[in-house]
């Protein structure tokens, strides 16, 4: 392990969600990550994953940065940001190269050329490329890990390209730059969460990670160690709250409270026999509700959202493997599905996931030194920190590896 003589640089990550903005500052000392400060604030100005009030969001992020700097007692110079939500889309881009025939072996030059030809494709008008993620490389139609030195005729390089509305990207960068902080990189939120939750072995086998946040539900699918595809459904935990507030004619805050205390991802017959109290003191203004109403409303919404995810996954798979009938099952994804994000806290979430997705589902809880942060809602920020540590110099960046794609990111 390289020991750095100067003060190790700070690594700061900020995850701006619909419900809350979570920031984390860490430091790598002697190859071991230390957490220096943590900040969590209610996000304002974001609805359904879309920024609706720039000023409010700006203030909110500014305060989060102030929190982080105050506790860490050092200024932050650069941050990693997550991106998620409806303005982020991904698509597969391909690059080809015909391997020169003199010896028929793929050289590094051929490989690079193929990669460049994939990246040469312009993103659609008004969208900026955020990052490229490596997908399986094909040599004469067969998937290979590293084609260099192999015999073949036609080399095909695939990337999952993530693009975002240009204005949205610019706004984020400006917002951070306004605090004299540099945006080091963007990380796809669902990928960040996955980094905290799954092992390399699980990625190799195939796994679906669903980040059920407050405003959006983002999913990402790993297959044979690569990101195969990712997507976002503009429905999240806020919708559960909203449905409860509509059904029970109660305020948003009351609905949120009841959701946390009584909601479930599965509706059971005997829920209807339970009566619950809003405040619990049975005093003036306290109301009683049928628990069955609450579980019915939330279960329907939760299951429907997973159903949307399932359809979206299948839809994208059909585009990647045209002509194949795709099925989500354990043969395809041996490691099943992992639910994370704030809404994964819902009771029986894993059970509902298993039923709807047809995959063994578990709730993903990030492994973290402090127990208070071992919650699904922190998977994003913790995973991002993990990814950032692997990316950040020093120590010297690894030239190849899972996070090699980080190198290819769009720089500002």
């Amino acid at each position, binding site marked *: 392990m390289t020991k750095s003589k100067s003060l190790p640089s700070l690594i700061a990550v900020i995850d701006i969600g619909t419900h809350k903005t979570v920031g984390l500052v860490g430091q790598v000392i002697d190859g071991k990550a230390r957490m220096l400060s943590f900040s969590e604030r209610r996000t304002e100005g974001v609805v359904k994953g879309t920024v609706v009030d720039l000023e409010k969001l700006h203030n909110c992020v500014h305060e989060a940065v102030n929190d982080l700097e105050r506790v860490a007692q050092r200024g932050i110079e650069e941050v990693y940001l997550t991106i998620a939500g409806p303005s982020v889309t991904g698509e597969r881009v391909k690059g080809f190269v015909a391997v020169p025939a003199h010896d028929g072996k793929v050289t590094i030059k051929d490989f690079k050329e193929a990669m460049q030809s994939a990246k040469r494709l312009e993103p659609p008008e008004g969208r900026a490329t955020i990052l490229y993620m490596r997908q399986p490389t094909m040599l004469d139609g067969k998937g290979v890990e590293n084609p260099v030195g192999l015999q073949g005729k036609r080399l095909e390089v695939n990337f999952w390209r993530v693009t975002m509305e240009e204005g949205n990207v610019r706004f984020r960068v400006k917002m951070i730059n306004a605090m004299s902080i540099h945006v080091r990189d963007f990380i796809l939120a669902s990928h960040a969460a996955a980094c905290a939750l799954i092992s390399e072995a699980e990625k190799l086998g195939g796994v679906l990670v669903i980040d059920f946040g407050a405003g959006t539900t983002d999913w990402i699918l790993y297959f044979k160690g690569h990101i195969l595809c990712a997507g976002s459904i503009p429905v999240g935990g806020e*919708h559960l709250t909203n449905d409860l507030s509509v059904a029970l004619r109660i305020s948003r805050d009351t609905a949120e409270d009841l959701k946390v205390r009584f909601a479930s991802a599965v509706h059971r017959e005997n829920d209807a026999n339970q009566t619950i109290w809003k405040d619990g003191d049975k005093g003036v203004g306290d109301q009683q*509700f049928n628990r069955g109403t609450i579980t019915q409303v939330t279960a329907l919404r939760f299951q429907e959202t997973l159903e949307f995810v399932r359809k979206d996954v299948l839809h994208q798979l059909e585009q990647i493997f045209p002509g194949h009938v795709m099925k989500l099952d354990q043969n395809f994804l041996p490691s099943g599905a992992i639910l994370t994000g704030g809404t994964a806290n819902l009771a029986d979430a894993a059970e509902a996931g298993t039923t709807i997705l047809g995959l063994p589902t578990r709730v993903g809880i990030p492994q973290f030194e402090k127990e208070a942060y071992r919650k699904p809602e922190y998977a994003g920020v913790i995973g991002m920190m993990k990814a950032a540590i692997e990316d950040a110099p020093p120590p010297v960046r690894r030239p190849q590896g899972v996070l090699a794609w980080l190198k290819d990111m769009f720089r500002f």
Partner: protein
Amino acid sequence: MEPNRAILLVGLGGAGCSIVARLAPSLPAEVKVALIDTDAAALVQANGRETIQLGRAQTRGMGTGGEVSVGTASAESEEPQLRRLFTGYALVVLVTGLGGGTGSGAAAFLATVATDAGATVLAYATIPFSHEGERRKRQASEALDKLGAKAHGLVTVQNDLLLLQVSKEAPLSESFAAADEWVGGALRALAGTFVPGALVPADPAAVRSILSTPGSPTLFTYGRGEGPGAALAAARAANECPLAHAPGATTKAASLFVAVTGGPTLSATEAFEAVAAVRMRFGGETTTLLCARVVADFGDRVEVAVLGASTPALKSLKKGKGTKPGEENQQIFGFATEDSIRRGLFGGTPLTFIDGQDVDVPTYIRRAVRLPVGP
């Protein structure tokens, strides 16, 4: 008696006649066309369609020379003939260019005669280019006031607007072609809804009820889309149609009539999405009438035409409060309920559709699931 579903498209004056003559070949056969002018030469374009020459006595077939009073007198002298023409139509669409003599002078009178004959009158008037001078402008605005008071619906288009829509080098014909496309497309879509065989047919009376009160500002827009997501694309195009963005144009209407025309692949959910997108932009809180029609040769093309008025027209149709989920009146297509009732905290935010459903509406409402009642 068979309900009266006929539509008459009338071009009045030089500009009106030329617009209508250009449009006529592309209209469905059910739309009858008539040209009315003082200038005998203009009526030659009629190509065998019905024509009425106004003011033979006053102008001897030479046009009005831009005199409004001559135009009015010419029209009044032909009243019996006009009355005969308008009788028997449910909807009369009166297209005219204001500013000259015939259009400015006769439009209001024609609207009166048609209304008396029992037709709903939708007037479409163009306002002269600003470089055509003060006199034409004044005549146009006076005529507009009169026409607005007589016609059930009045759509105005600034000719200046046409200049903004096309590139500087574009030939003159191109800028007119753009305007024809909006008007013609909207008329085609409107006309189609009266034709028997529509998927969700419109009642002429319903259209009439939307435009019931003369003098109310009228919203009129049109858009088309092709390929996947054509319906939504068409709705977006309609939302952005310059007709709805002209200075002084109505941008919100309490009652909307949305005509969706598509090929055989048009699905109900697509039609839904289009209607909802249009409603997001224009309102339609009181009533939204949908008419969907499938035309075999449309392929994957979808056209959306919107007609709207702000005067409360129909009696407030069933609102969400009184209806049980899932029992909304079919014709109103479930969107007549207030945003805030169904979408709760998301009321007023942009709609998000998945599989043709507005996902901000609680799942239990969309699936009409009965919730366990009482504590």
